[in-house]
């Protein structure tokens, strides 16, 4: 199950990269052609490997958060603007990245990633805190954030990824990069809209 899920995630992330590079959003009703091309490219043999194995080798197993963002992106290429990922989720991911990555790279003796391992004394507190954040987010109408945390907790509980660490289900650099670019593009679009409106 772990391998199948990882391969599925790798396939989706490869498709998202292909769709982004090919600007499939602009293809309109011809998007299935891009889908078929990406699907074929996924199983293209290169030396002794197929493309999907390279993707998994480079990206490792992606988090549930990244998977959610990628699925939203792919769905939006097929049906433009049908899912707008809520900023609360993106800010949550960015905040986690800022908190987590410098320390896991050795900035301090404290290692927040260790809290996600099941034998760590902080593990239970972390699980309860995240579930609490999910419930609060749901209560205050941030369903995307609530859903991602809830899915991550369930995926961690059933061991859907090869990692035994809860953080691996919530965050990875790909999610952070997607969120950063998402904010940049949103900022550019807003500036362009503002410029257009002032021109009139």
């Amino acid at each position, binding site marked *: 199950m772990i391998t199948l899920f990882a391969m599925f995630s790798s396939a989706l992330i490869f498709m998202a990269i292909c769709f982004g590079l090919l600007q499939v959003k602009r293809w309109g009703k011809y998007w299935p052609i891009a889908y078929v091309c990406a699907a074929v490219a996924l199983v293209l043999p290169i030396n002794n490997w197929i493309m999907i194995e390279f993707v998994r080798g480079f990206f490792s197993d992606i988090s549930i958060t990244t998977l959610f963002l990628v699925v939203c992106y792919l769905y939006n290429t097929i049906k433009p603007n049908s899912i707008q990922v809520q900023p609360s989720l993106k800010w949550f991911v960015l905040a986690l990245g800022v908190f987590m990555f410098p320390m896991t790279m050795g900035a301090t003796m404290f290692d927040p990633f260790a809290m996600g391992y099941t034998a760590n004394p902080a593990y239970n507190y972390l699980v309860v805190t995240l579930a609490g954040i999910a419930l609060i987010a749901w209560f205050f109408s941030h369903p995307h954030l609530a859903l991602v945390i809830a899915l991550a907790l369930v995926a961690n*509980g059933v061991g859907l990824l090869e990692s035994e660490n809860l953080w691996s289900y919530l965050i990875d650099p790909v999610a952070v990069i997607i969120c950063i670019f998402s904010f940049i593009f949103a900022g550019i679009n807003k500036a362009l809209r503002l410029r257009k409106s002032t021109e009139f």
Partner: protein
Amino acid sequence: MYILFKRFFIPVLAIFGLILSLTLSHDDEVVVSLAPESTLEITPIFERYEFGEGNTPAMHSMTSVTLPNGNLLGAWYGGTGEGKPDVKLFTSVFDSQRLSWSQPVAILDRYQASDQLNRFIKKLGNPVLYRHPSGVTLLFYVTVSIGGWATSNINVMTSLDDGQTWHRSKRLVNTPFLNISTLIKNDVITYEDGTFGLPVYHELIGEFSHIIRLDLAGNVLDSYRITDGDNTIQPSLMVYDDKTVVAMIRDSGRDIEKVHRNISYDSGVTWEEYQPTDVDNPNSAVFAFVDNNNRSWMLFNDSNRQRERPRNNLALAVSYDKGETWKVVKYLENPEKEDSHEGRYGYPWVTKQGDIFHVMYTWDRLKFIHLRFNQAWLETLL
């Protein structure tokens, strides 16, 4: 009903996830398991063996464990050079009766590792063998999919027949950053509850050491930071009692160039402030071990980077204060410590087998040297 389901799907999912995740929680006390006391011989034994030469053009990073019949199982990587695509992991058995190593057997290449791990593998690296008290042999090894050693991952495969056959590899996840940059070099410590601590190090951006605690299934249970990202890699652990563990650590920087030391009083869970010792270190691996009289010993290159050939000697030093101060008692290679001496000696490894100690190290990356000595021989050096 549907509206209710739709409305409460997310909170129900969150609570379900909470319960599922909490069921995984462990709450075990971490206590180091100590090796049984052994009977000591009075007569000093010191023997030297060479092996591996010609098997592959280059070889490195020897590791070994004791088998139940008294033999040793050794593993290393070999190929045309470090990091080359043709590098494979090899094993060999040292027969303690015949006192010779068997013909090396290739057990894993990058294609097999790719197949087992279901992803592209560019190269293989450092192996570490560990024999669990239950009789299972584990082989940890490093793989890289993209870039250099700083983007390594650790994997483990197990053997139920003392290394004759190996089961599929499993990837260990140690960082949230695409799980890259964790490597291994030195020996494992066993805990009383059957879990064990693998000393590992991180090399991307920050270079630091930590211990990952694992169970027999290869699940990572916890991680304990020994140092922060300050050029301190390849920790070698010495166990003095069920709580006291000392780490001797390689310096990978250019400022201090000394072996670092840190101490833990709770079985390696939390550590004090790490400090450099007086022992020179030219960014090369060290291996520290405790003898049967609770004295500390360390193998290292007694040199610094200013020397033209910083790895052309291999020193054996003793410490009476748990690794704070060291005194070199013998040079196993280049005894005169001549600067002009050709040769690179590195990646020492020690396996303790009761009264007998097996030291292994790489000789110019062309072969391995295996020294077999006992406690009585160590006493003659004091």
